[in-house]
């Protein structure tokens, strides 16, 4: 992994790395990539990918209303709100 790849991954992950963080992060990630490369050598034959450890279907519940949105309660924990809206920096001019 090079600096360019790391910069792209940081952008995709909405993370910001300071110039001092880039070097150590790159060294660590290259060791992690070496680790995750180990399993690429395994011959998996025709084994299908396993996404869920129990390999079962998810049960569906009845389509009835069970929860209601309590905006005031949920917005109490937001960093900035006004009149029921979440405040963010200006998005459109």
């Amino acid at each position, binding site marked *: *992994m090079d600096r360019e*790849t*790391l910069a792209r*991954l*940081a952008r*995709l*992950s*909405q*993370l*910001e*790395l*300071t110039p001092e*963080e880039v070097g150590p*992060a790159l060294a*660590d*990630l290259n*060791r*992690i*990539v*070496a*680790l*995750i*490369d*180990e*399993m*690429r050598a*395994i011959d*998996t034959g025709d*084994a*299908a*990918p*396993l*996404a*869920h*450890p*129990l390999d*079962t279907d*998810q*049960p*569906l*519940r009845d389509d009835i209303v*069970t929860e209601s949105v*309590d905006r005031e*309660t*949920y917005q*109490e*924990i*937001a*960093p*900035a709100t006004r009149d029921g809206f*979440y405040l*963010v*920096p*200006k*998005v459109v001019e």
Partner: protein
Amino acid sequence: MNAHESIAELRRGLLDKRYSAVELTEHCLAEIDTSASLNCFITVARDEAVAAAKAADAAIARGEAGPLTGVPLAHKDVFCTEGVRTTCGSRMLANFIAPYDATVVSKLAAAGAVCLGKTNMDEFAMGSSNETSWFGPARNPWDPERAPGGSSGGSAAAVSAGLVPCATGTDTGGSIRQPAAFCGVTGLKPTYGRVSRYGMVAFASSLDQGGAFARDADDVATLLKIMEGHDPRDSTSTDTGPTAFRGPEPMTIGLPAEYWDNLDAAMGARLEAATRELEAAGHALTTLSLPHTRAAVSAYYVIASAEASANLSRYDGVRFGYRAEASEDIDELYRRSRAEGFGAEVKRRILTGTYALSIGYYDAYYLQAQRVRRLIRQDFLDAFNRVDVIAAPVTPSVAFELGAVTDPVDMYRQDAFTIPASLSGLPAMSMPCGMLDRLPVGLQLIAPHFEEGRILNLAAQYQRRTDWHRRHPDISIDAGSRAEREGADAV
């Protein structure tokens, strides 16, 4: 009265009115204060605990005690608690107060348990030493210079130190079993889906599973009975009926060569003594092979990191959690809030997961890891055609010193013995089975899906024949005087 007693003993004391729930709670709160240097708790919920204890005493007086009425416990700070902050060991959630209780929290409260607070953990449960916690690491009560393990280190240390008789934890790749082994307590990761994940802050959703720490297997069984069951709010929780706390008699116990070969000699000797004790109890031992074990850590760090990168995208500095000040535009707000709110390990996992999921790498990493995951699970399914349970080490060594493991990949390899059962969704536990250099050693027992009753039963049999689970550290002496005393012993 003390929190080194089992749940069953404390319950008897409460029902016989030898002490009240308020007295027991205040005793535990005082122990937590005295042991503050162990840093087991991120938040102590003093007022809430005393109020719950008063309600427990009233219930006992009315003759309406539930299975845990008046029994103190602690929740890992990954479980949401209405009105008490849930930090997940992160600056990102340092001021987060959930507007609801996790299902595990509400079930244990309904059973009468008195929650004393929220325990320390690696940030977002990512770590094996507690050192990634934004609040500093919890310390191992057997030796405060050593790690309690992670990620549920605060819970394991709190039970070990006798601050609480039991605590909740979560296990994604070993986060209950490894700290249980390091701290000398009994800890169970149930089958994936046995316990609801509702209100449990998500790390890797196909692996995360809630479980419990306690003094012994009987207490863990008591907790599991309350915590388990399908939850309509978690569609991955299963409806398989309650755990049957029994197994075949006698059992055939498989010893996988990939775990037992090349173990440190002293460690191996302690563990073998434990398996021989099980043999003496009438069970049969047999060796077997789980051939894909070596690929497990590698596959796990693809899958867990990929799921983490998706789950942690919710932290945006807008709806809840940490927000960076004075950002110019919305993207800068996201980037800076996440950069300042997450620690280095969490960032590494997000970047690793994003890498494994990105265009050009998805097939080679993510899909390949899922294929390897199937092979690892199939190894276990094949083995369970021959044996009833599997016995293995939990960790390659006893608790290491804080600061001793600095390379992230070296830290990841600490979980080599716990990750395969996690990838397979299998129930697995750690029970104390000896001491090495004055530090506890744990034996891992792994069962087929939904057969946690087998390993709890086997552990209970072992614990009736041994007393390792009853040993606890003397936390009244600090590290300095401990060394002095040990020096005196040597003379």
